């Protein structure tokens, strides 16, 4: 079976219904039908290896960027990901100035500020001055400054309120995934996203694979018919547990839980919502944002029965679509076990394999195979490049529709596993369950029981 590496040209590589497809967005013409091999896959696909240390090519080194007019940026959520997002923004746009930072926890603000202000490359564009804000009031105080863009990277529980207030305040928003931990929260962001469109404000999500060039290329191929109509998708997000930190003397419930937010349902939404949501999002991407009809799921705590927190450590979810299409998600956080994060998209005329970490971006068609051989970029930086380019051009990126749906689908899977019920999309949208305290504050926060299928009720 021949294998086409990179951009396809005539004769058609995928059969008659797919012969005109090209990949001009991501594959430079130099790769056009570079290698078509007679023999089997082994020798063939090997030719996809473009350089010594990466199967996919790195994009051309960035040219020195012209100095752009300043854009004042605030960062809310000064942990590792938030600090990383601030650096991504600085790298992405030469006019970005970090103007304010904030977090519930003072030590996070301090360490983040130190990292930014000691950066040889970017310290000249870190101008925080007295605009560092600590505690739950940090959001309001930051929004009262003249920042134009806010980066939201706190635990997901706080995201809906933050997005709503930020859009109301007229700020462009980068919000880490997921878009909330419960249905009312996700719908709040949906409403804020509509308002953002009216105001021409960005609402960019941290579903980073949407900004990955190889992923874009392979999903584009799928949408253009490379594998025909999708029949089934199988996605894995089988990882290992996140770290947890012992409670220290003097820590309130809130502080201890926030420092261990991965492990508490109300803060992170469980790992299916805050981690495996990437796989749910890619599943949703493949299905072109089609709404699932209903959902079955299983889950439990096999390894962390006595561990910190109240989330599950494994899920198996089935999403049913119109026409008998089903997609399956397997997600776990088990240590001392193999890991895998792959998407298998099975169509009537072929199969796509997608793994961003391997990496592997491959389509096996009826008569030919396709292996991505185009450039690759750091998706975390690229998403910021696109956001700031959109802000500067006035053509802002608004991810609301699919980012909210991906979040809701992850919540749907969690609720189906927790309750044991078959959850329809219509039923999901009636959920009024709001996780966590109505008004978060330092102090006591009860840990809710671990859900028990058949007994935990949908609400």
């Amino acid at each position: 079976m021949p294998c086409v590496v990179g951009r396809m040209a005539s004769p058609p590589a995928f059969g008659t219904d797919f012969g005109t497809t090209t990949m001009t967005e991501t594959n430079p013409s130099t790769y056009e039908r570079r290698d078509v091999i007679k023999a089997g896959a082994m020798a063939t696909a090997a030719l996809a290896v473009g350089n010594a240390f990466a199967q996919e090519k790195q994009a051309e080194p960035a040219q020195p960027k012209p100095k752009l007019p300043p854009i004042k940026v605030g960062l809310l959520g000064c942990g590792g990901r938030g600090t990383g997002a601030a650096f991504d923004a600085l790298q992405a746009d030469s006019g970005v100035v970090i103007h304010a930072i904030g977090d519930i926890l003072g030590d996070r603000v301090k360490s983040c500020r130190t990292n930014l202000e000691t950066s040889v490359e970017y310290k000249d564009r870190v101008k925080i001055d007295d605009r560092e804000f600590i505690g739950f009031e940090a959001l309001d105080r930051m929004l009262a400054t003249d920042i134009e863009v806010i980066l939201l990277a706190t635990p997901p529980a706080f995201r809906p309120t933050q997005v709503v207030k930020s859009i109301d305040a007229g700020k462009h928003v980068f919000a880490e995934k997921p878009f909330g931990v419960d249905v009312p929260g996700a719908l709040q962001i949906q409403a804020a996203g509509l308002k953002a469109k009216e105001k021409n404000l960005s609402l960019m999500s941290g579903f980073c694979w949407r900004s990955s060039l190889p992923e874009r290329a392979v999903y584009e191929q799928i949408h253009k018919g490379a594998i025909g109509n999708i029949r089934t998708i199988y996605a894995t997000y089988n990882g290992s547990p996140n770290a947890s930190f012992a409670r220290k003397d003097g820590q309130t419930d809130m502080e201890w839980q926030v420092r261990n937010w991965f492990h508490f349902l109300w803060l992170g939404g469980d790992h299916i919502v805050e981690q495996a949501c990437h796989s749910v999002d890619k599943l949703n991407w493949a299905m072109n944002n089609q709404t699932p009809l209903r959902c079955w799921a299983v889950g439990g705590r096999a390894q962390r029965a006595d561990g910190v927190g109240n989330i599950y450590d494994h899920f198996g979810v089935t999403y049913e679509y119109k026409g008998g299409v089903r997609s399956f998600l397997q997600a776990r956080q088990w240590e001392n076990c193999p890991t895998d994060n792959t998407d298998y998209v099975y169509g009537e005329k072929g199969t796509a394999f997608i793994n961003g970490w391997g990496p592997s971006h491959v389509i096996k068609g009826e008569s030919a195979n396709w292996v991505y051989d185009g450039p690759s970029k750091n998706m975390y930086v690229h998403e910021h490049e696109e956001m700031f380019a959109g802000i500067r051009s006035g053509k802002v990126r608004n991810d609301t529709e699919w980012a909210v749906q991906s979040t809701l689908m992850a919540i749907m899977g969690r609720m189906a596993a927790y309750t044991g019920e078959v959850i329809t999309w219509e039923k999901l949208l009636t959920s009024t369950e709001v996780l966590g305290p109505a008004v978060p504050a330092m102090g006591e926060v009860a840990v809710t029981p671990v859900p028990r299928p058949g007994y935990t009720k949908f609400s």
Partner: protein
Amino acid sequence: MRPHDLTLRALLTPTILCMAAACTSTQAPEPVQQPAQAFEVAVPGCTQSVRLMPIPAAEGVGAFWMASTEVTWDMYDAFVFAMDRAEGEADPVDAYTRPSKPYILMDRGFGHKNYPVISVSTKGAAEYCKWLSAKTGYRFRLPTEAEWMHAARAGQAGEWGFAGGQEKLTDHAWYFANAMDEEDFRLETRSVGLKAANAYGLHDMHGNACEWTLAADGSFVAKGGSFKEKPEALMISARRANDAALNATDPQIPKSVWWLADGGFVGFRVVCDGH
């Protein structure tokens, strides 16, 4: 140099470990010029043992033992997840530090049990050696680049540690031409030890995972090339620097000092200086 001929002699069990000068004295042994026999050391917290092959001295390189395979996930998981430790037991202060829990999926889905550990930083590799030393009483460390090259040659001249040169590479190494999974067209690591060993009894010195070593200037360099590389990267003189590109896409700041988000091809093997 003539290939060492002792590697296939009787393999001693961990309970009767004996190496040239080491088993009859409680004193630290003098530097060994010609380790006599291979031996095994059980890795705490897992069911695998490190099989240590004697590597004879050569010009500029003393004698030492080198693990017959790259460190596997089985061996490294025991360290990361503290599987050697009884519940409630604390690690000794200042002896070693264990890695953080990996944030992303560090085996990349290639395989786990008996597959070579990958995505490991130099700090992770060095601390593993400290841990294994503290736990077993043997002196484990990373090889120097010179030691690694000497061991990889196994008496051969040139760039390949086996007879027949590059044409025979596929018999000895997993690399881009033979490491493709036919199902998903992905280049992947393989279980350690499947390819033929060199004359010193060392598997996968070329290809599979490339391996951290300590260069003469004190920096770390990765040797041997990997499953995803072309033959020139697998040559004995080839080396890969420890640079920022190996962790460029770790989305956290500060970036992990233990795991390499973009280093899904870098592992290591240990060497041993005896007790």
